[in-house]
């Protein structure tokens, strides 16, 4: 009997504590800086083009093969009277968020710091009705960085 009374006392003590749950879509928890949602591409604001040169490093390193990159000549390169030092630049970039396992390897292998894991809530709330909508293309991947909604964290 004593044990049961102790159980009752324990639940009563939690009864008096503050609830630990919260209303989710209304109140978002602050995400830590390092939070990893899905990879997004970064936008070079100085030159106004993506950092990514389409070098395929991340595509090769991806364990789940969720990335597809194609490369093209940079029309904005200095040889073409542009202001960019990138000779090549990304042409198309697809990431299948449905396959991505958020392992951060693409960020680590990138030589240009052109890709980062999305650490905002937008990166987490990606529910869609069709799986095909989870294949992100280049504009979608760049939109957050372009709009300066991202404080990216890249290790080291």
């Amino acid at each position, binding site marked *: 009997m004593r044990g049961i009374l102790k159980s009752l006392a324990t639940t009563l003590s939690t009864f008096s504590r503050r609830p630990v749950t919260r209303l989710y879509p209304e109140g978002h928890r602050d995400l830590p800086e390092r939070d990893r949602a899905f990879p997004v591409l970064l936008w070079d604001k100085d030159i106004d083009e993506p950092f990514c040169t389409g070098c395929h490093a991340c595509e090769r390193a991806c364990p789940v*093969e*969720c*990335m*597809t990159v194609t490369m093209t000549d940079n029309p904005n390169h200095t040889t073409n009277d542009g202001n960019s030092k990138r000779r090549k630049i990304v042409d*198309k970039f*697809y990431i*299948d968020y*449905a*396959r991505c396992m958020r392992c951060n390897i693409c960020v680590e292998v990138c030589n240009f710091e052109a890709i980062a894991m999305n650490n905002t809530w937008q990166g987490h709330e990606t529910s869609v009705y069709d*799986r*095909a909508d989870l*294949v992100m*293309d280049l504009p979608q991947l760049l939109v957050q960085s372009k709009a300066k909604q991202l404080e990216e964290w890249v290790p080291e």
Partner: protein
Amino acid sequence: MSTDDNAAGTAEEAQVEVVDTFDDTIWDTVNRTLRAVDVRPERSALDLIIHIPHADIIRGLRMLKQDADLQFNYLRCLTAVDNESEGIDVVYQLYSVPKNINLTVKTTLPNENKVIETATTVWKAANWLERETAEMFGVSFSGHPDPRPLLMPEDIDMSDTYPLLKSHPFAEIDVLQGEILGHDRDAEGEG
């Protein structure tokens, strides 16, 4: 059969190496225990590996378990390694709870006849591990009490394909991604 006898079959340098290298391991005890069996030692990064011919494997394992100095009464793990043309290794990771020692036992099966006696008579722990090995590598464990597949689907007949063999193809998944899908969308956008 003594150590010299089975070492005789191997190269001359290997014999010298055997004598030199295994002093710090439990090889002496193991060798003494397995006098009657043809054993060959090898060194792994952590434990001692011994190779036993597959005909003697259960006899050898039972000796290892029953020997008072070794008492390998705990079967850590049982699996197989597909060495393609060189056959399949069946690997037993043994541990002795009273003595706190480890041993890896290996035996090689030829590709054309992948049959080995079951170890469930030595440790009950071998039951599921053998079932898994059987379905993954096509090694058949004769005398196994419950030879159903363990992880593979029951309703599909997988008896002719063994996923963990190197000959089994990897990832024939129809990938929903990339080029095709993206191009389609672009085409829609343009058109």
